[in-house]
Structure formats: C-alpha cells, structure tokens
C-alpha cells in the first residue's frame, strides 16, 4: 500500500479494500461463534417466525441506531411522546437509550462477534475494574458518554435487562459471542436466530452456504454493521413499506477529536499520529449545512446501506438530522415529519 498523506487518501484506499479487510477481521470468529451456538440454535427459533407475527402496527419501522446524533439531537422524547405505534427496531448499542427514554423496542438486533465488548450493551455480569482498565473502547468514544461511568452504567444495564428482558424480542445473529448468547438467554429475551452473509451464497465454496447447511438459519446481508442489519430486517424480514432511521450518522461531528473515534488506536497504528488526516474523510452535509468526518469503516457502511436502499422495495427515510447518510434514493427527512405525516402518529 502506498504511503498516502493527502487528506482522506488512505481512508479511501482502505474503503476500496474493505470487503477483504472485514473478512480477515471477523470471518473466522463469526463462524466459530456459530458452531459454538449450534445446539442452542437447533433448539431455538429463527427469524422465519418473525415473518408470521405483526411487529409494530402498520407498515412503518423506525430504526433507532446509536450514532452521535442520538446525543446531539436527543430524539427519544419526541418519539416517546408522539404516539408512534409502528415497529421500533434497535441495534444492541441503542438499548439503553431507548429503555431510559421509555421506548420499549419491538425488536433488538445484535451481530458483532467481538468476544467481550458487545455483551456490555446487555449488561456484563463478568465486568470488573481490571477488564475496564484493559480496554478503553467505550470510554474514548462519542457514543454514550455515560459509559464513562462504566461500572455504574453496567449495573444499570443489568437491572434494565432483568426488568424488561421477558418483554423484548431479539434477532440474535449466529455470529454473536458466547457471552452475548448466554446473557440474552439468562435475561429471558424472546430469541430469533439468523445468519449473516459472509460471502455470496451463490458462489462455489461459499462459507455462507456451508453455514446454512450446518444450522439451517436464513442468511441476511447485514450491510457491514448492526445498524444496517436492523434496516435489512425491517425491509426484508418484516417487510415494512416505510423504513426510517435515526442516529444513523456513519460519521462524527466536526468538533469530535480523533481520539474519541471508534478506530483511533488502529488508525494511529496504521498511519501514525501525525498522519491521521489521511485516514479520516471529511464530507459536507448540504441538508444540515455542516461538515462531518468519517473513518473508512463507517464510510463503507454508508456506501453499503445506500446500495442496499437502492435495491429495496421499501422507502428509506433518514431522520438522523446529521451525519453523512444521504443521496441515492434515501429521503432525508426531519424526524417530526416521519412521525406525523408518514407514520401518522397522533400523540
């Protein structure tokens, strides 16, 4: 790889190789987790059963993701007070925000195979100060700043899941870590299993096809990240005609220090602390009249979801009111307009 120092140049080059890089990062671990969960999968239900249920009223879905606009725009109260009755679909990182804003999701989605980080969204019964000290991933980020008070928040999450767990449905990916699988079972969530696609199942020697043959679960194109997986489940499993997203920034606000971004340490390891401008890509949002910046993974996620939305039968509304997810056939829409005019919420 050439040493590119122009702003965003290295970032764009990484995006161009993201399929290969992602496979190297998560492929083996996700498949290993699927094998570990095989006996539970065979005893459990799949997302096929979700197609036979009415999830949320009507034909709308609202994905409440966990990007920085959730904190900056705080859409929770408006959603809770609107009387919105359509489906609310939430990635694991959005559970706390919803429950603390009195929004009980109709469906939670989890997918990332990381062995220790993801379970914290559900409350980690094994979390200790020593483990916190070893991993600053949540502490650094501009995601939910309350996680800075990590042990207290972890206790809060344990209580929230124990309180609400039996009322919550979760689309549990076969790639989920043993820690997440154990936690959601113990918390009593209503579990529906699915496989992510790792590659094109129509190709010879497809890992996805082999996985399906092993566990029989439907295989979903997750779009690179759990937020996009929420969108895909709304559009293609629940078959909602109108799918809105909130908190789907795929970027950081311009005043966010690089240190507070998800991949900061990895970016420094690759490019050096003096060359970080080459990794991060700045994008102007004309709807907001503001600049945002993104890293290669999130830029790729944006491109993937634009591609998926372009192939969909549903209409896609981005109600984030920030970030870089616009273009294609995505309708950049104020949240209030979606809730009132499109979803018909009447408060």
């Amino acid at each position, binding site marked *: 790889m050439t040493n590119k120092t122009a702003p965003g140049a290295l970032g764009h080059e990484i995006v161009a190789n993201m399929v290969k*890089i992602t496979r190297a990062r998560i492929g083996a671990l996700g498949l290993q987790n699927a094998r570990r969960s095989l006996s539970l999968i065979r005893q459990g239900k799949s997302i096929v059963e979700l197609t036979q249920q009415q999830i949320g009223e009507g034909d709308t879905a609202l994905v409440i993701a966990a990007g920085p606009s959730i904190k900056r725009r705080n859409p929770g109260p408006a959603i809770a007070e609107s009387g919105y009755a359509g489906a609310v679909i939430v990635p694991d990182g959005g559970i706390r925000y919803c429950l603390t804003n009195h929004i009980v999701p109709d469906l939670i989605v989890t997918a990332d195979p990381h062995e220790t980080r993801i379970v914290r969204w559900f409350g980690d019964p094994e979390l200790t100060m020593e483990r916190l000290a070893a991993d600053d991933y949540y502490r650094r980020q501009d995601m939910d700043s309350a996680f800075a008070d990590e042990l207290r928040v972890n206790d809060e999450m344990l209580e929230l899941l124990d309180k609400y767990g039996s009322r919550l449905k979760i689309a549990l990916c076969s790639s989920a870590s043993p820690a997440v699988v154990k936690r959601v079972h113990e918390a009593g969530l209503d579990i529906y299993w699915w496989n992510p696609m790792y590659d094109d199942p129509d190709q010879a020697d497809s890992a996805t096809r082999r996985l*399906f043959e092993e566990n029989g679960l439907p295989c979903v194109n997750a779009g690179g990240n759990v937020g996009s997986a929420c969108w895909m489940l709304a559009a293609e499993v629940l078959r909602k005609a109108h799918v809105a997203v909130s908190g789907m920034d795929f970027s950081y606000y311009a005043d966010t220090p690089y240190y507070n971004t998800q*991949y900061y340490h990895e970016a420094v390891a690759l490019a050096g602390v003096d060359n970080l401008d080459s990794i991060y890509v700045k994008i102007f949002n004309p709807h907001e009249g503001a600049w945002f910046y993104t890293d290669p993974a999130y830029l790729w996620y944006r491109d993937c979801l634009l591609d998926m939305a372009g192939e969909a039968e549903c209409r896609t509304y981005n109600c984030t009111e920030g970030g870089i997810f616009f273009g294609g056939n995505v309708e950049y829409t104020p949240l209030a307009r979606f809730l009132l005019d499109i979803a018909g919420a009447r408060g």
Partner: protein
Amino acid sequence: MDEVLKGNFTTKHKVEVQTAKAPSLEERFEMEALKKLGGSMAFVSKKKVMWDLKGKE
C-alpha cells in the same frame, strides 16, 4: 537432509515449485493493523436474505 532423501527417478519435465513470497514484517504489521479497521459484519452486493438453498430471496 538432501543427502538422505533422494528421489529414484528424474522427471521428464523440469518441475518448478512456486512458493509464495513470505510477507515482509512491515507487510504483516500493515495487514494486522488493517484488519482492525475492518467492518463489524460482511456486506454482499445485490443480496438481501437467503431463506433456503433454492436461492429464493
């Protein structure tokens, strides 16, 4: 070892064994660093949901 292990015939055609060039330490470091910048999940262009092996989506 070559002194011990000897074939008992000569091939008709010259056999060239192509061995992949081992990545340099720098390349290995770069790949390890790149891996950590990867996505959380895969993306497969033009695909939605595969419900069964008949390929119906």
